[in-house]
């Protein structure tokens, strides 16, 4: 099943921004309109109305997660995700990562020397899969695949998004307390490239989702029917 809600919400937000800019443009006509009181009043009403309603709509849409409930559940409960990247030679690469979801975007942290990062620098298109396995019934797995672009948070991006990334850090600590503890106690024994020091050893990546596919239950394969 394919969802386009996320894309539609982004379009609506874009439209709200355009409307807000129309509201701002009307300010330019105020000196001209001041010669006629009725015209001025009309213009004032128009600019106030369009700005107010667009701002309310923009804020309201921003609060909608944009993902169906079942996908949000998978993103919150799923502990491992798989990052698919591909270099400029079209050689795919796939590795598991831990990740968090901040109600809008998926984030994961990778080593600065990893092949994943090298691939993302060559080709920003990535895929990200989260699945939930049922050990009692192999068919009963569920998964969501996101396809889109990788947003690598360099130092400047991190400064510009400091509050968001602090929240991401706090979600990581809440979601993976055992991992945080292990890295804290044994991390110093690791080679520098695998330590968790941000911007020296590791870098944050966000997934800008363009398309998502959700599925439940594995499709069957045929098993021997010898005639």
């Amino acid at each position, binding site marked *: 099943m394919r969802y386009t809600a996320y894309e539609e919400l982004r379009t609506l937000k874009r439209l709200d921004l355009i409307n807000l800019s129309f509201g701002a443009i009307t300010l330019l006509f105020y000196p001209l309109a001041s010669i006629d009181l009725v015209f001025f009043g009309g213009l004032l009403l128009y600019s106030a109305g369009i700005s107010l309603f667009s701002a309310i709509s923009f804020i309201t849409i921003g609060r909608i997660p944009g993902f169906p409930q079942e996908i949000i559940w998978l993103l919150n409960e799923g502990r491992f995700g798989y990052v698919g990247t591909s270099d400029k030679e*079209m050689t795919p690469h*796939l*590795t598991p990562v831990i990740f968090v979801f901040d109600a809008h975007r998926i984030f994961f942290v990778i080593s600065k020397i990893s092949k994943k990062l090298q691939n993302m620098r060559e080709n920003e298109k990535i895929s990200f*899969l989260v699945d939930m396995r049922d050990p009692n019934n192999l068919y009963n797995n569920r998964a969501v695949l996101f396809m889109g672009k990788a947003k690598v948070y360099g130092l400047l991006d991190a400064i510009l998004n400091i509050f968001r990334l602090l929240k991401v850090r706090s979600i990581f600590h809440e979601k993976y307390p055992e991992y945080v503890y*292990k890295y804290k106690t044994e991390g110093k024994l690791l080679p520098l490239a695998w330590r968790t020091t941000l911007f020296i050893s590791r870098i944050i990546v966000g997934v800008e989702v363009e398309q998502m596919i959700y599925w439940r239950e594995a499709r069957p394969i045929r098993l021997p029917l010898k005639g």
Partner: protein
Amino acid sequence: MNKKELPPEMVEILRDSHFAYLCTTDQSNQSHITPMFFVFDEETRDILVFTHTESKKIKNIRVNPKVCLTVDVRDPQNPFENIGVMVQGEAVVESPVDSFSIIEDEELMRIYKEFSKKYPVLSEAQSPTRLKYPEFTEALVRVRANKMVYWKGPHFVTVNFTEQ
């Protein structure tokens, strides 16, 4: 066949794990991932999967046969105990078979039997989803490894089959 020895840990994961993740790319170099049931052929070192002929991964493989397949065992408590194998190679799509056709090919029959042995729960009588897909055509996809990378936590072992 390349005779390079595989570390036993690598063979163990590929032989015993139940899920593999297959990554393919389309013509725009957009990657695509799907969880798969699979069998590891210890003799040829091929990874074998079955997939429906209309699937996105088959379409991608026809455009670009380079694939990556990852199998891992997760430890939710200790990141240094996470283990896995990543296989990079080329996929070969073999002749498709219809779901109710009679299989005459002995090699294909042997592979189906390997799947039955590894996944007894997937037998047709037990499959909860089997009735939803009364007829389909599937193809065997053989992933021929060029490179395998094994990891345990931050430690890696790479076996490159293309090197002499």
